[in-house]
């Protein structure tokens, strides 16, 4: 099930911030983290992210449900790296047959996994607390994104949940025609491709019809647009972005002071 709806309590202080401000804060915060390979800076970042979560009105349980594919991936990466790392330097913790878990292995693996989580979480928080319409409005009004792109993407986005329904329908229609794959993996792959093709043809047709309907209502006709829903970028929004930058800098400084900092370049 593709879940596109925001899940936050609408009144939460940071959830109400301008969508562009939230997006900018998330980007500033994560770009700094990409600069280092050590596990300390991302660990601090994750702690900060989890600490501000209530301010966004997102409950931890809801976040866990949204982020579970990410957590599963993180677990997978951790296991793979521990088993197959090339660099086996440092103190040896566990030795079981061919598997040698050393300090170097653990630091590299943890660094990578924590970095992935620290970079992904802000994105999840932003989209969990932002209505897609508000995001498109703010992108146009505050970030000067072209309406053609922002509204177009928004309209296309609205059709996404239909695709899942469509996929089920096409699969059943194939079965009614006497087409199924049974246990044969090659037949399964071919059936998958043929359903995907039908889905694509339908999606293109639907997209074309939608584009014509938007055209008929004067979309992108060259007339300067007005806005029905005003999005404001206030001082509080600027403060959010600045705070995010400061917190990221603090995480990096801590890592440098502790001597764990390992720059990505050099």
């Amino acid at each position: 099930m593709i879940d596109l709806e925001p899940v936050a309590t609408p009144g939460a202080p940071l959830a109400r911030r301008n969508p562009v401000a939230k997006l900018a804060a998330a980007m500033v915060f994560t770009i700094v983290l990409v600069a280092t390979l050590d596990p300390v800076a991302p660990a601090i970042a994750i702690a900060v992210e989890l600490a501000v979560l209530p301010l966004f009105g997102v409950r931890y349980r809801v976040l866990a449900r949204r982020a579970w594919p990410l957590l599963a991936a993180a677990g997978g990466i951790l296991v793979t790296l521990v088993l197959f790392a090339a660099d086996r330097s440092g103190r040896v913790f566990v030795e079981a047959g061919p598997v040698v878990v050393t300090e170097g292995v653990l630091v590299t693996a943890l660094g990578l996994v924590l970095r992935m989580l620290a970079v992904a979480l802000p994105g999840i928080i932003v989209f969990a607390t932002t209505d897609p319409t508000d995001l498109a409005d703010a992108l146009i009004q505050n970030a000067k994104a072209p309406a053609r792109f922002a509204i177009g993407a928004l309209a296309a986005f609205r059709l996404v949940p239909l695709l899942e329904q469509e996929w089920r329908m096409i699969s059943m229609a194939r079965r009614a025609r006497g087409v199924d794959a049974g246990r044969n993996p090659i037949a399964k792959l071919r059936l998958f491709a043929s359903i995907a093709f039908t889905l694509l043809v339908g999606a293109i047709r639907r997209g074309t019809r939608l584009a014509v309907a938007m055209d008929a209502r004067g979309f992108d006709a060259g007339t300067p647009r007005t806005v029905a829903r005003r999005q404001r970028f206030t001082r509080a929004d600027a403060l959010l972005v600045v705070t995010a930058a400061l917190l990221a800098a603090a995480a990096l400084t801590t890592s440098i002071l502790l001597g764990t900092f390992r720059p990505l370049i050099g």
Partner: protein
Amino acid sequence: MSGVVLRGFGWRHGGRRRWAVRGVDLRVESGERVLLLGASGAGKSTLLAALAGLLPEDSGEQEGTVEIDGLDPRKARERVGVLFQDPETQLVMARSGDDVAFGLENRGVPAEEIWPRVDEALRRVGFPYHRDRPTAALSGGEQQRLALAGTLALRPGLLLLDEPTANLDPTGATLVRRAVADALDADTTLILVEHRVAEALPLVDRVVVLEPGGGVRADGPPEAVFAAHGEALAAAGVWVPGHTVPPRHAGTPAGDVLLTADRLGLPPRLAPTDLRVRTGEALAVLGPNGAGKSTLALLLGGLTRPGTGTVTASADLAGRDARTPPHRWRAPALAGRIGSVFQDPEHQFVTATVRDELALGPRRTGRSEAETTATVDALLERLRLDRLAGANPYTLSGGEARRLSVATALATAPRLLICDEPTFGQDRRTWRELVDLLAELRDAGHGVVTVTHDADFVAALADRTLTLHRPADPGGVDP
């Protein structure tokens, strides 16, 4: 408010040999209400697209002229509003009010005027909810009324309606027509394309009939046009009032039970339902939108697993699979026993030509090549598809696609045929062919189940009806 003048107008889409519409001379005065008729392929939709300014100059070839208030329609877009057939692809925004505001924003209407105009438009079409209502939560008829509000909010001088009720159930269609009647200003010009003439007549004062080869065949007040051309129009596929179709009910009582549904349901879409499907009987499943009619069709067709209860096939129908329910049969075995025709024909197309499409079923069920060819040739002729044997199924017209989807289900000669809304949006000619075809199948001892909103179709074909209720209500019971 706006007048239309066409002089020798014609349009040929880029890359096509045939003119979609040609030689049209027509003058529509400001405030007139016109019903545009013609057989499938007479170019009604192309003409509307031209009037809406939706045919870019580089997308085809034009003959003659078309003018709205003396302007090229591409430059008079602000004067024209259009409502299309499919509600789902006309709504742009997630919230109802935002969707009406969308057009106003595009036209650069000052922000402080937008919301009063949105509320006024919603009130005029009788939109029953607050403007925050998610568009995804609306029924088809409500979505179409919302799309109408979005068009009317722009205050068009000319309103074009391209079969706006073809995809709706009767209740939704009535509400949309009433909204059009109530919401139009007296001086708004209206041009309407609609197959179902009787329902559209109260909205119009003039009928224009396009000739498929080109030109205007008839033009005038409805009574005069139908008195002079009614017979010919009916034969060409137009639903002319007063030209009813003789019913075709079973001459003999129903035969053996093919399929038994016992407390069959799929929460939350279908409440537990009891049902027996018999040979030599046409059963119609009725009920409002949301009652689970399509779900019942899928369950009876062995296409999805029941949530509650069971479907049992008779030993005669089940053959070697007598001990398993239909939803666990392998697909080729299923296709040879129970045929399903989906509401959207394109969902079922698998191959690249009409001929291959018909041959697929027989081949999958293990017929010889000679048998397959014989079956395919017979069906091509029977359903007037022989000239299209090499065409791609996706390029067919609505009526052709429907005939092909029924033909593919018949190609494997199933004992039971299940159709979901087979007559949706069909012209009178295809409609009659469907009635005749299903009646013949029934008379030859097959079982026929149709899920439908079409009261005329039920009156013409059904031997028995089952009415479903929304799952909150008590479940449907088979008498």
